[in-house]
């Protein structure tokens, strides 16, 4: 009887861990490799919404994909910017770095100008300036 209980428990644990592997492909607190804390991010659109901030004149150039990884102890980010309009767009962008306590982990970056061709994608990538940067925001503004 005791063995039956133990076998049932072992089976349940194995099943549970099996499900966890399938469902929880991501590390907890991460979506597509990017830190999300306790936010509920179910899709790439949710992640983009959570990480992108518009400041000043709004631009129609938007990230369609964002992925993060680690380079040593530094956060590495790839963001694919898409211009689906029929004209060349000029924007500027910067990253804002946030530490584990939600405070600024680095001083405000300089705005970097960017030209995105019509109906095109452009990959923007960066590495966190310090290992204190646990999270980030991609800040965009139009230069038109």
């Amino acid at each position, binding site marked *: 009887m005791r063995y039956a209980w133990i076998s049932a428990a072992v089976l349940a644990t194995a099943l549970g861990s099996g499900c966890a592997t399938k469902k929880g492909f991501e590390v907890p607190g991460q979506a597509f490799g990017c830190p999300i804390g306790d936010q509920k991010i179910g899709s790439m659109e949710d992640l983009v919404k959570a990480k992108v901030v518009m400041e000043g004149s709004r631009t129609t150039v938007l990230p369609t994909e964002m992925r993060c990884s680690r380079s040593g102890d*530094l956060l*590495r980010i790839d963001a694919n910017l898409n211009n689906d309009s029929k004209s060349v767009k000029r924007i*500027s962008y910067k990253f804002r770095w946030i530490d584990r306590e939600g405070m600024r982990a680095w001083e405000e*970056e*300089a*705005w*970097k100008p960017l030209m995105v061709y019509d109906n095109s994608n452009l990959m923007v990538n*960066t590495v966190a*300036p*310090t290992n204190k940067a646990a999270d980030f925001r991609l800040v965009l503004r139009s230069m038109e």
Partner: protein
Amino acid sequence: MKRSIRFYGLLPLAAAALLAAGCAKDVTRYGDSKSVETVTNEFGSTDLQTIAESMARSMQTAPVIVSGNLPILTVQEVRNRTSEYIDTRAITDSIRSELQKGGKVRFAVDQSGLKQQTGEIDRQQSGYYAREQSVERGQMVGAQYRMEGNITSIVKQVKDTKDVYYKFNLQLWNIRNGLLEWSDEKEIRKTTTRG
């Protein structure tokens, strides 16, 4: 008589010019030092900031920096091979500041600061200072890697268009064995059209 009429006729014009000059006041405002600057297409603050940030971030991921235990670097010259005056020291200073703040490297005194460094050691060894608190000669730490680079430009101009292309190249050399451990480039293109 004729001359005095002409003189008095010019008076209102002169007064108007004086008034206009008086009204056109200069206005000074503080701006955002991090904003995109496009006053002319010569090398500007945005170029300096973009290059420094890009180079420092890239260097931080170099295997020698990642695997090294706070490697010691020294800054050498960035040669200006453009046709305009560029303070390349300002670029290397910004790169050094960003790297130093990142906490992954240390910097040894470079050639430009060596005179001040040795001068201070000599001063402390001059006999005027308490011997136990004075720094001794022969305690300075040499760098393991040296950082040097080039900035080049290609300028093309036709009637109403001027195109400037900058290429900044930075290298990290191993001083002991002369190997190139890391290198990266940043390109910038600016075009000015009249009208």
